[in-house]
Each structure stands twice: as C-alpha cells, then as structure tokens.
C-alpha cells in the first residue's frame, strides 16, 4: 500500500484560493457597478462564460479531467480580471475574444494551470489594446448612467455606440490634455473640473480603487498574498510620481491621482500578485512589485497607451524567473556561511 505522509492535511485547495480571490474582488466590483451601472456585471458574465467554454474545449483537447480543472476557479479569476480591465461598455465580442485568447494562448498553450509565464488577463488586455485601440479606449463619459437595456444594446452591438460613450479614463484624459496643451495646461486647473476628476482622480473612480484596496487587504489578512508586491508596487508608484510632482506640480499629477486612477490598485493587489507568473522569493517580490509600479507610471505618463499596468506587469513577468534565480533566500543554517564559524 502506498500512502505518503503527511496524513494530516490543511483544509485548503486551489479552488478555495481562487474563490477567495473572487470574493476579494467583490467590493471593487460593487463600487464599479455603482459607478457605471450594471454593464460591468454583464461583462463579468460574458467573460466568465467565454472563459469556461474555452477552458472546457482546451481541457477536452488535452484529455485532462474536466471537473477537477473547471472547478479550480482559475479561469473565472482570469475572466473577472479581464472584464474589470476592459471598458465596461466594450462590445461583447471584444471581451469574449480577449478571454478566449487569454485562456487558449496565454494559459493552455503554455501548459495550463500553473505553467503560464505571463498573466493571462494582462495578455488579453495587451493583445486587445494593440489590436483594437479605438474600442479599448472608449469609456463611458463621466456621469453617463444608461439604463440596463441601453447598456445591453451597446454591449451586444444592437445600438449605435453613441458619442457620449467615447469618453476616456480620467488618466487618459489628463494625459491627452497635458500633451495637447504643451505646457499651457495646468494639472491643478484640470483637476478643478470636478465633473471629470472629482476630488482626487476621476469622479467615482476613487471608490472603485478603494474597493480593490479593501479586497486586497482582506487577501493579505487571509494570507493569500504577502505584503511584498502590493507595498513595493504602491511605494514605487508613489515614489516616482511624487518625485516628478514635487519637481513640477503643474505638469505632473500627484501620487494620489496615480494611485487612485486606472488599474493601479487592481494591479497592485490582484494582478502583480499573481503567483504563477510573478516572483516567489520575498526579495524577488519586492523587486517585481517595484519594477511593475515604476514601469506602469512610465508607460501611463510617457507612453502612448491610456494605462501602463498591463504592460508593466507583462514586462516584469518576463524578468520574474531571473529575479527569482538571483534572489534565492539564504536557507536555514547558511545565513552566516560567508562569515565563517563562530568561535
């Protein structure tokens, strides 16, 4: 008879981990739904369905046990992250294509659960923003509260994509304004337009960011994630944005603006902390988080895309194996190996 020790096991499983990640997303989703209406919930459903279908197909092709892997919840987490990073009124096929791409190419072609070198959700985002830049930049105008039926019609392509819809995220709007203004525009003046920017970083968006923060802290408390990546991410983002803001407050927005806008909070707690594609050593996690925060700022402020979190995380994913290799922690009993024996 072959039964390996230990016989006692902690009550935990991959699906439990993934379920808790989903639960942690709920506050953010709630704030998001309050802000833009039920469209986001529709997108979540579309993404989940697409993910499950793609996952089933890929598992079937590979002859892997369906029930075991479908119930692990990792596809749902990917799908939700995609839905939350895409524009809420994006056409249904865009979300579905992104999700299928994430599951099929970014996850299963690399070997499935646990083997993907890149964060699948961010691959989907990157692919879609490269391929469909226009659609990926159409955010609902601030204060636009379409009823569910209209939102559904927009998502399903039954209604014309009204002009009111082609807004941009506050982050993008700010960048565009600063760029077009070529120095004539002032951050403070722009921010004074509270219709768009609210008090901090886009009317209502700060609540979404706050929701993610709550969920992230809960995950930390549940030991699903460690403090390293989020803290390093936030710290580096604050550091670089703060430095530039102090240098030239007219042209660079404050750290608070950067923290509360775009995907910063979602990225810090839910995307950069993805263990499969990220770093695993404590020091590695710090480097990973700091690098992602820094790159995210550089791309979103100096780059051509509306937000930089996705590309920053993907770039750091590339470096993760090397960082891990170089930051292997000293093991028990070998910490003072270099100093020689104590007398």
């Amino acid at each position: 008879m072959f039964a390996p020790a230990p016989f006692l096991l902690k009550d935990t499983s991959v699906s439990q981990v993934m379920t808790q990640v989903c639960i942690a997303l709920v506050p953010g989703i709630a704030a998001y739904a309050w802000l833009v209406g039920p469209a986001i919930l529709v997108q979540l459903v579309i993404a989940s369905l697409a993910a499950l279908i793609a996952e089933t197909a890929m598992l079937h092709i590979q002859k892997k046990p369906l029930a075991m892997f479908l119930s692990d919840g990792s596809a749902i987490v990917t799908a939700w992250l995609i839905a939350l990073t895409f524009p809420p009124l994006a056409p249904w096929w865009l979300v579905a294509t992104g999700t299928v791409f994430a599951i099929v190419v970014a996850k299963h072609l690399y070997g499935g659960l646990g083997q993907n070198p890149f964060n699948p959700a961010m691959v989907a985002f990157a692919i879609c923003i490269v391929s469909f830049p226009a659609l990926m930049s159409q955010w609902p105008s601030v204060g636009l509260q379409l009823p569910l039926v209209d939102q559904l019609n927009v998502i399903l392509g039954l209604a014309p994509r009204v002009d009111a819809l082609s807004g941009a995220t506050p982050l993008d709007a700010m960048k565009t304004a600063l760029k077009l203004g070529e120095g004539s525009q002032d951050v403070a003046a722009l921010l004074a337009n509270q219709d768009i920017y609210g008090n901090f970083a886009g009317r209502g968006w700060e609540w979404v960011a706050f929701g993610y923060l709550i969920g992230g802290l809960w995950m930390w408390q549940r030991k699903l994630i460690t403090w390293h990546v989020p803290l390093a991410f936030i710290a580096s983002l604050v550091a670089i944005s703060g430095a530039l803001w102090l240098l030239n407050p007219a042209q660079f927005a404050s750290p608070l603006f950067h923290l509360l806008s775009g995907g910063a909070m979602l990225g810090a707690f839910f995307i950069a902390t993805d263990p499969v594609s990220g770093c695993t050593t404590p020091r590695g996690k710090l480097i990973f988080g700091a690098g992602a925060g820094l790159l995210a700022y550089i791309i979103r402020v100096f780059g051509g895309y509306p937000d930089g979190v996705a590309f920053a995380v993907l770039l750091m994913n590339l470096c993760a194996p090397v960082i891990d290799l170089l930051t292997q922690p000293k093991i028990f009993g070998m910490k003072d190996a270099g100093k020689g024996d104590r007398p």
Partner: protein
Amino acid sequence: MLMNLFKFKGGVKPPTNKTQSLGLPIAMAPMPSRLVVPLHQSIGGTPRPVVEAGDKVLKGQLIGEADGWISAAVHAPTSGTVVEVAMHVQPHPSGLDAMCVVIEPDGKDEWIVREPVDYKSLTPEQVRERLQQAGVVGLGGAVFPTHGKLTASKTVPMEEMVVNGAECEPFITCDDLLMRERAEEVVRGIGIFRDLLQPKKVLIGIEDNKPEAAAAMRAAVEAVGEDFEVIQVPTLYPAGGAKQLIRVLTGKEVPASKRSTDLGVQCFNVATAYTAWRAIAHGEPVVSRLVTITGNVHEPRNYEVLIGTPMDELLKLATPHPDTDGIVMGGPMMGFLVPQPDVPVVKATNCLIAHSDRLFPPKAPEMPCIRCGSCAQACPHELQPFEMYWFSRAKNFGKTQEYHIFDCIECGCCSFVCPSRIPLVQYFRFAKSEIWAREREKNAADQAKERFEFKQYREEREKAEKAEKLAKAAAAQAAKKAAEAAAAAAAGEVPAPAAEASSPAPVAAPSAADAEKAAKLATIQAAMERAKAQREAAQPKNTEHLTPEQQRAAEEIESRRATAGLVPPETPVNEKSE
C-alpha cells in the same frame, strides 16, 4: 526563569490530537506470543547475529553485536528460545525483508545478570562503550547510536546541550508520559550525557502544551539537584525537530553540511536519556520502549512494549474500530503505513496510529503547482519546496541539489499546506534516494574503471617484461652459439680474427651448418620461454592484497570444499587452457 527564546521560520499548526492518549498512565504491554527482533535497528552497520536457532536466551542477552563504531547492539527482549534467524518483513516503507531473530518467550521473563555501575567511576570511553553494548540509540525516531553523539568536537567547546522533550508531532504522547512518570530517571540520564560532553548549559525544551511534563521535569531537576533549565517552547510543528529545537533554545542554526557539535551544541531525546540511565545504572539494555497507541481506537494509551512485539497484537490492546485499515508508525506528519500489520515494534517505533479513512481522509488528486509559495512560507528550513518539486518532478537532480534538497528534513509542512495537494515530501524523498543511488553507481563505476585500467596496465607491463626477458634470452643464446661456433671453427684450425668471431655472419663454411643449428635451437628456446611466460601469465597473482574479509571468505569456501570431498582435481588444468 526568564530566557530569550528564538524563533524558526515557517512551521505549521496541525491539530495536536494528544489528549486522547493522555488519560491513562503508562501500562505494561502483555507478553506477545512471539518476538521478531530485527538486527538492524539503528543507523550504521547491521549487527551480526550471535545466536542460532534453538539457543536459549535470557532477557537482555546480546543477540546481535555491533558492527563497527556507528552501530548499536541488539538484545533479547525476554527470556525464551530462538526459533529462527531469518528474513522478515520490516516496519519500513519499502516492505522489504531483513535479518531478524525470532524468539519464542518462555513466559518467565528472566533477566541476565544485571550489573549496575556508578558511571562516575568509569572513563568516558567505557561509558560510551557500555551505551553501545546496551544498544542505546536515539529514540526520537532517528535511531542514531547515542554513543556516537557523545564526543565533543575537538576544536569547538560545547556550549549547550539541548534535551528534546518537545514532542511536536500530533498524536504522539510517549515522551510526555515518560517525563510525567519517570522524570527523575530522565534527569539522571541527562546527567550522564552532561558529564560526558561537559556543556556549559543544559536546556530541556518542552512544548508549552505539556505543562504537567514540564512541571514534573522541573521538580525532578530540583530533586536531583541539577542546574538544568526546563524551558517551555511555543507549540509549533516541527519544534521537536532537533535542528528546530536547537534554534529555538540557542539561536544556532545547524545546516545539513555540518554537525551540531561543530557549533558547540548537541541534542538528545528525553527517552534516550532515560534508556541511557537504565543501561548504565541498572545494567538493563534497551529491550523495550514506550509506544503511544492511538488513532482510530477505543482506548488510546501509552504502553511499555518489548522490542519485537508484532504491531497488530499491540494494537488489539487499544481495541481498534472496525474500519481500521492500516497502521501508521510514527506521527501523522512523518510516519508511514507499515507494509503488514504484524511487523515488529522496533526502537524507532514511538507511536502507532490506527489508520482509517475517517481519521485521515484520502487525498484529493494532485493539481498542478500554482507557485503560491505557501510551502516556502511553511518550510522550517527556509527552502523553496516548489522549486525543488519542479526539478524533482522533472528528474533534474542536479538542480534539486542547487536548491539544497539535502537540507530538507522531510517534516511534511510543505505537503500539509499545499493547496494543490502535491505530495511534495514524496518527490523530495524520491529525488534524494535517486541521487544517493547515482552516487553509489558513480563510485562503483569509478572503481571498476580504476581496476580495469590497472589490470590493463599490469598486462602491458607483464607483456613488456616477458618480451624483454625473451629478447635477452635469445640474444644470450645467439651469442653463446656464435661463440661455440667460433670455438669449433678455431678447433677446425681455421684461423679467424677475434673480431669476426663475435659475429656469426662471416664464419667459415664448415661452421655454417653449426650456426644454422644454433639459430634453430635459439628459436626453440625462445618458443619454450614464451610458453613458460604464457603459463606464468595464466596464473594470475590475484590472491594478494585481499582484505581480511575476502581472505576469510575464500578460506571458508576452501574449507567447505575440502569437507565436501571436492579436493581440486589433480589434472594439470593449464594444458587445457591452451
């Protein structure tokens, strides 16, 4: 007592399940019908059997003598008759056989003459030898011969001696009860170790979930008048691992590449100290030990059990529930399912847990690793188990060593916390034993290569020597013949200059025939030489440079052959070979 405790990283808190078996005091297990005593019960050399089937033995009588320095003697657990010395299934995960002495008890349980001594009158060497002869080994589970640990490092002074009463594994309570009921003897045993090692401090670590044991030990320390410190350490698995306890009590970390004495610290189990005291002060070798019998049973309890008792008989004492489907030896974190229920209790058996699916639910299937890092956080040795898993799984053993697989103590913390249900420890054990096997193979191959090259060198050398000898002989012959021919020519009154005489070429016509004959003779001579050389070569001188063991084996066989009337035939076998 205020003392600064250290922490080790990682660790887990599985449900302890200890109270079940703590309710009743230690009981003597009844005499089993048969005792199967494995000879190999400790790390190191396998003891040689010194009894044969049919011998009468007394309790405590030596039945297996230690083989080498790292080896410990084995004794008859009771008086009776040796039924056989044969291979029996071992309480080992392999389920393989090993040599055992099977004893049928006569029921009298009659001791040999026990010689209590005052160890203070003995030299340290004598104490160590007595411990070896009494079969005292580490009873925490590692069964390393204790006398081998009782020598301080020559360069590093002994600072602390750590006594392990932590007993961190769930379910096990035998050390707890030992300390509660026999604390004084434990303390006296620790005294022996202290006197041999001369540490500056003696620290007795007991997990803080055993307050009674700690109190009993404190009282005993005071009663005996020692200055040992009894320290309660936080309950956290694996605080009872020797390296973890050393870390907690002294702050020192012992890596796999070092011995703890190199850091001036040594660690013993409380049960080991107890048996050492019994062995020295009472002259009783290790023939029994405390075993916790728990798990899926009605009456969990600790028993004093004779070594060699079949486990199934023992388990019956605690009345297992009907759905019991196996016996786990050791704790639930590091133990293993024994291959057969009737395997004997050995010195390493600290606990028997009746296994059932209700108690230990079957594991869910293994999922892929999601690199969540839980295992790395739980690892008390701060390893990266998921990396080692990755490479073990891919059989990339060199890489596993780069990630320090040999520092893994197989405590099972990583498997315990893994959400993907990966049997990580299993992969590490697999990798380790593969690496060891390869090491063995490599050594064997290197040795074979060396021997092969030496043989080739020897053959070359012999060939060269023969050839040289041959050439010399031929030359000598030729010279001789030539000289003879010259002499003959001179006798035939053919004047020849001396210079010419040395070379046979220009000899005069009458001697030509002679010279030819001489040449022929020389070739014949050479051929005979060659034959002789071949014969010599065919008699390999391979009976030299043998180890005494090999010599003995050869002699033994020769004598057997002689008695069997198989005297080597007188036929000259060398002819046959040509």
